[in-house]
């Protein structure tokens, strides 16, 4: 293969962030919620949960979301899927943060696209109904639709790559976008992830007994599983030099990315923690960062017995007990394909606002490892370098390294 002309790697800046999660719409509300250790998990009302063990999730205020995109929906003459509304809200925040950012490529992660519209379509078959919304459901069911809806905000003729690497999708999207900008393939890439809660996925995790009827307690001795969440986050990545030339805001830098695949089992990680360990080691090597330089780890931390056992082991092996660790899923649930992007956004907020987001509902550390958990309350901290982990079904593992601007 004839590679592009060799050139020095570029530094990669984040010039804007848009985030929508159960902790708030936008960076301001999200920062306040993270500092306060707010619990964004509430009872599920979107569908029947009378026959599931778990009955809660980190849900977004749908009325606020709908109001946010009302003008667009009125102009188009039809409703958008909640996933499109989340993505467009995140996109609008990016536009407000860096109006001159014009993406050349979109790299977006998701696990389920507009799944709830697919559920409506199936139910209509069973009930032998042919509602006029069927065409709307079909057109908005596919994973590319929220991406195109968001792209229209610019407007831009940028192509899109949509990654579906299960729960690592968001981090994979940010990591791949980072590599492309660093290598000089693109100057500006918009990246992130989204997922909206759907009945099928909710029941899926319940059927595996991965979700819990209790509070989500990552890394706790008495953890019993995850609760799902939803949301979207977008990060504007740009060649640092280019961003500086146009006086764009520089919020943080991404300096490294690592990916690994653990072939042990479709839904269970290898107990040794080799998958997470390889992802973190590869990301640190990619960034040229020593473990001792890392000031905070935003863990995948789903609170399932398997995930935390392997991730905790890998963190302890690489970092010992010095580095503060928290799983912000304790506050917002697990938003699957969006999680990595949202947690990358949280890392940017932590770097800029100088605090460690907490791991709430924490009672007692699992004695299997010695970790420095940011238990229950946020802490003030001067941060220079942080990492964010995401791991998923299919054995896919991803880590990114972020640096203070």
């Amino acid at each position: 293969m004839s590679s592009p002309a060799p050139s020095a790697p570029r530094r990669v800046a984040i010039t804007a962030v848009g985030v929508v999660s159960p902790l708030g719409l936008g960076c301001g509300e999200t920062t306040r919620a993270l500092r306060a250790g707010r619990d964004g998990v509430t009872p599920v009302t979107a569908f029947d949960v009378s026959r599931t063990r778990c009955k809660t999730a980190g849900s977004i205020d749908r009325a606020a979301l709908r109001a946010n995109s009302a003008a667009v929906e009125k102009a188009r003459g039809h409703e958008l899927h909640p996933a499109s509304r989340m993505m467009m809200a995140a996109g609008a925040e990016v536009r407000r943060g860096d109006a001159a950012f014009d993406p050349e490529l979109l790299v977006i992660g998701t696990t389920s696209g507009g799944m709830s519209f697919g559920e409506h379509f199936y139910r209509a078959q069973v009930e032998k109904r042919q509602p006029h919304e069927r065409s709307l459901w079909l057109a908005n069911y596919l994973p590319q639709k929220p991406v195109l809806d968001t792209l229209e905000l610019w407007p831009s003729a940028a192509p899109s790559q949509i990654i579906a690497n299960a729960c690592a999708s968001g981090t994979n999207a940010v990591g791949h976008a980072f590599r492309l900008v660093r290598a000089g393939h693109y100057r500006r890439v918009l990246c992130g992830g989204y997922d909206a809660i759907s009945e099928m996925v909710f029941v899926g995790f319940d059927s595996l007994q991965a979700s819990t009827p209790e509070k989500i307690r990552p890394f706790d001795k008495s953890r019993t599983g995850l609760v799902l969440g939803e949301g979207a986050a977008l990060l504007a990545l740009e060649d640092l030099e280019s961003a500086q030339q146009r006086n764009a805001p520089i919020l943080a830098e991404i300096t490294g990315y690592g990916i690994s695949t653990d072939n042990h089992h479709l839904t269970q990680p290898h107990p040794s923690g080799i998958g997470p360990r390889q992802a973190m080691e590869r990301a640190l090597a990619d960034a040229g960062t020593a473990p001792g330089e890392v000031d905070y780890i935003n863990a995948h931390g789903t609170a399932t017995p398997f995930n935390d056992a392997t991730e905790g082991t890998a963190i302890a092996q690489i970092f010992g007990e010095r580095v503060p660790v928290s799983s912000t899923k304790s506050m917002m649930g697990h938003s699957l394909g969006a999680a990595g992007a949202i947690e990358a956004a949280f890392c940017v907020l932590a770097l800029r606002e100088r605090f460690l987001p907490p791991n709430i509902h924490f009672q007692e550390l699992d004695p299997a490892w010695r970790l420095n958990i940011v238990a229950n309350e946020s802490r003030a901290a001067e941060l220079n370098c942080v990492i964010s982990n995401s791991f998923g079904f299919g054995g896919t593992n991803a880590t990114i390294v972020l640096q203070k601007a």
Partner: protein
Amino acid sequence: MSSMLPPTTAKIAGLGWVTPLGGGLESVWERLLRGDVAEAKIIANPETGREHVYAPVPPKTVEALGRNPRLRRSSAISYFAVAAGLAALENAGVSLTPETAARTAIVFAISSGGVVYTRKFYEQIVKQGANTASPLLFPETVYNAPASHLAAQFGVDGASYTLVGDSTVGLAALKFAEQLLATSDLDRVVVVGSEEIDWILCEAYRDWRLARRPGGSRGAMLAEGAAAVVLAREGKLDLVLHDGVPVFRRVEAGAALARVFADLLPTGAPDAVIGCANGTFVDGIERQVLAQRFPEAALSFPKCALGEALGASGLIQVVAAALALQHGAVPGMSADGKSIDTVLVSALGFNQQAGGAVLRRTA
């Protein structure tokens, strides 16, 4: 193109496919040249009795994988994907040892995902209650389940990605693979696209006015299948890929496709085009743009014979284009003594973007 850099040239080192006309590279190619068309099968919606038509992969095509322990509960897409991937590696002359696997990545392309298990799982929820839904089905509904099986089969512990999108996603996956090669020290990327069919998918595409009805001639014949391409630093054929141009509304599709063609071939014309016509609105748009830009090129439309395999179709087109170069012929056209040195792959999806690629023999 959107990238700051001029188009790079990846090398095609291996090819494989699993189609409604069978699985062997050469045997399917010969059938395409003969004008064979995939056998159609009827599938009915059990709720309403409405019948649909689609092109299945003959079961014997993947029966050799039947005893593979990793695949014992997997969906058809995983069988198709593994069969196509193994064939492409064999065609490339690559035997994956732990050392070579460490320098190999996987990119998997899909449009509808594990639609059979997804429908079955949700059916259990709706008809029997959430507490009866099978934990054996749910993991196989995840888009990246086939990629996971591919990684386990090949022993790959590094990069493995699944891309989703419309029927251009195969070309997007190749572009993604090219980027992986350019930004890493990998030796090769195995790019696989796969699709399976269920009655719910047929219902959806019929309601969308895109799928053919039994006995009809308009609309796409939805099809099962998979194709695989090994991209590497050395290979038999050069592949130049476009990033893609988004299509927000159908009226913009012709301009998007024309831009792809102009970017890929700013001067000159291909000797042959492997088009994406599938019996839908795509046909007229593609025909018009091709007639304007490349009126002399030989045109071939493999979806007429193999059906519309959605996430697999872009890769099936690339395999067909590679075989056209290797054999100096295209299905549906007489050879008329003209050599085939440059082949254009044209791709226009239903609701995401236009894409394209150019293949040439490596100098």
